[in-house]
């Protein structure tokens, strides 16, 4: 069974006695399909045999991961951090930039699936899963990046609190220890939160597949049968998780920001870094979500039904608001640092703008503010998937640059001018590309293994939405489900 624009009207004609074509075309929630058909569409998108293009991309990504991530990392471990570009005073380089970047990316998933769920933003329904996957996979990359950065990564377990005869524990004064705990908590909770809404879909997939897939889904579905009791439990659990994960999400990036803000360095020691980092994370996360959605919509079967311009429009609005928020925090941080007049901080600000890498600073502002504002104010442009996803890419470039400016460039300037020195990345580049490729690879694999669209959630929404006529006006009403 296929779904495209030509067939749509036919389908509508059969199934909808009432309704307004205009609304239906625009809104997924008002454009219901029979349950079985929708299930089949999702299954098909997942199980259709991959094309040669898929394998080509998959192969290229695998090679990049093998070289960029695993081979380069092995070299890094064996030869020492010296083959990276870090030096005195830039003791932290792109590794930490990437860590913050990936953690930022991972924020989108939780934001969409938890905050929007809590606030009942109905447009979220078709892509909560896609966003949550980003959270988990992004955190994996963040973990990789931070472990790469360790001088003796084989001793990473010393950072974990475990009883030992040496009577040694991690130092709970260190923001890095908080960081580790926060990221671990976030990874575990977001993985669970990814898994819970997945169960009904896995059960669905189990019922519709054979062979190894059957075993796979049967194992993961945990025997979900769809009874009232099971649904009640599941909804309860999801509700609890949705509420619980929001503070975790906020804490994670706040704590990441404390890695910097709690330090004594000029340019870092700033009280506003917590919210600034969170908004920044959402900024890059939303940008990444929209890129992923555009790619899914363009490459996977049946996705044009589930992911529609209305979603790009909705996320576009969010992006615009977040971009404004980011601009506000950026200005706030800059203003206070500048006004403070500390000579080292002032020097650093001058260095940001007028140093050899001053172009980065301007590029950051253009990517993060100018481009989103220029494009996203217009509802029409906002609904063009490729355009919005281009904006998403720019935002991600801009946010990556922001972290680059905060970490290696700010580290260049300190209170000992005798040591100031520029940072030139070395093996960080293949390693960074490797994490990106690994992220894509995981996503590609996931797109073939688990339903990217939470069918039950879409159906639930469609059941709740109604078009009601009040006089001449047709309005959308949503009934309470629970």
């Amino acid at each position, binding site marked *: 069974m296929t779904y495209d624009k030509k067939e749509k009207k036919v389908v509508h004609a059969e199934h909808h006695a009432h309704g307004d074509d205009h609304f239906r075309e625009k809104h997924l929630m008002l454009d219901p399909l029979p349950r079985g058909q929708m299930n089949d569409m999702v299954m098909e998108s997942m199980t259709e045999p991959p094309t040669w293009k898929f394998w080509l991309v998959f192969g290229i990504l695998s090679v990049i991961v093998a070289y960029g991530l695993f081979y380069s990392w092995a070299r890094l471990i064996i030869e020492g951090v010296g083959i990276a570009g870090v030096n005195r005073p830039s003791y932290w380089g792109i590794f930490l930039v990437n860590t913050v970047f990936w953690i930022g990316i991972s924020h989108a998933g939780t934001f969409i699936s938890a905050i929007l769920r809590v606030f009942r933003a109905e447009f979220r329904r078709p892509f909560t899963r896609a966003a949550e996957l980003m959270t988990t996979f992004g955190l994996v990359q963040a973990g990789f990046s931070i472990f790469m950065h360790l001088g003796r990564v084989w001793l990473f377990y010393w950072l974990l609190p475990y009883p*030992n*005869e*040496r*009577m040694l524990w991690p130092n709970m004064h260190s923001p890095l220890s908080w960081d580790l705990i926060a990221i671990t908590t976030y990874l575990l909770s977001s993985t669970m939160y990814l898994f819970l809404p997945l169960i009904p879909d896995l059960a669905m997939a189990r019922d519709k597949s054979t*062979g*190894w897939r059957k*075993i796979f889904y049967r194992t993961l579905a945990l025997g979900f049968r769809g009874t009232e009791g099971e649904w009640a439990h599941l909804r309860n659990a999801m509700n609890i998780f949705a509420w619980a994960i929001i503070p975790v999400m906020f804490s994670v990036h706040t704590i990441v920001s404390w890695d910097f803000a709690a330090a004594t360095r000029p340019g870092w020691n700033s009280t506003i870094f917590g919210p600034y980092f969170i908004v920044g994370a959402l900024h890059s996360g939303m940008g990444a979500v929209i890129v992923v959605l555009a790619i899914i919509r363009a490459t996977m079967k049946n996705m044009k039904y589930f992911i529609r311009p209305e979603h790009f429009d909705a996320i576009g609005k969010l992006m615009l608001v977040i971009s404004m928020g980011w601009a506000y925090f950026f200005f706030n941080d800059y203003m206070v640092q500048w006004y403070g007049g500390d000579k080292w901080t002032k020097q650093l600000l001058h260095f940001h703008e007028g140093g050899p890498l001053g172009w980065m600073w301007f590029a950051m502002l253009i990517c993060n503010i100018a481009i989103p504002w220029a494009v996203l104010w217009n509802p029409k442009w906002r609904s063009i998937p490729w355009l919005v996803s281009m904006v998403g890419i720019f935002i991600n470039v801009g946010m990556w640059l922001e972290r680059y400016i905060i970490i290696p460039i700010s580290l260049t300037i300190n209170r000992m001018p005798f040591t100031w020195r520029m940072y030139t990345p070395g093996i960080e580049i293949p390693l960074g590309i490797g994490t990106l490729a690994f992220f894509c690879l995981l996503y590609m694999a996931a797109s073939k293994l688990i339903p990217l669209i939470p069918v039950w959630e879409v159906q639930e929404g469609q059941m709740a939405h109604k078009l009601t006529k009040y006089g001449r006006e047709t309005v959308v009403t949503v009934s309470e489900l629970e």
Partner: protein
Amino acid sequence: MIKRLFDWLKQPLGLIAVGIGFLAVFSVAAYGLSTTQKAPEQPIQFPHKTHIAFGIQCLYCHPGAAKGPAAGIPSQAKCWACHQQIAKTETSELLAPLKEAVESGTPIQWVPVAQVPDFVHFNHRAHIAAGKNCEECHGDMSKVTIAENPQVFNMGFCLNCHIKSAGEDQAKLNKLADCGTCHY
């Protein structure tokens, strides 16, 4: 494919295969671990218990322990001082390496038994001065031939004793439990 493999593994034969594989890995690991705990091969099977039975004190052969950080291995001149007067030295097969070493003037290459890693700075003198006896760490040498470690010298072993001997004395504990006391 995977299913068939699973099915095969569920058979008794499969279970036995899994069991054997597991045992093999386990025993290799156990063997590897045990080699690190055995007393090493020495050029001479030096019988500590015999020497102690003659009433020779530890510090006679290892005087460095009372003077400084290293207890030291006695020079073969020291061994020879007694052994050249013992008739058995000429005939004993066990003592042939000693005789040969003294005659040819080449030092005997002993393998250290009790040792701590490079990043631990251990000082025998302080321990002897604090009233510790050799056997508290090195075990009862009157029972063994070549020296063996009764316990692994790891940080827990050191720290236990340090904390115990500090007792309630906070200043002493500060000193004895300070990282910089051993690691620098």
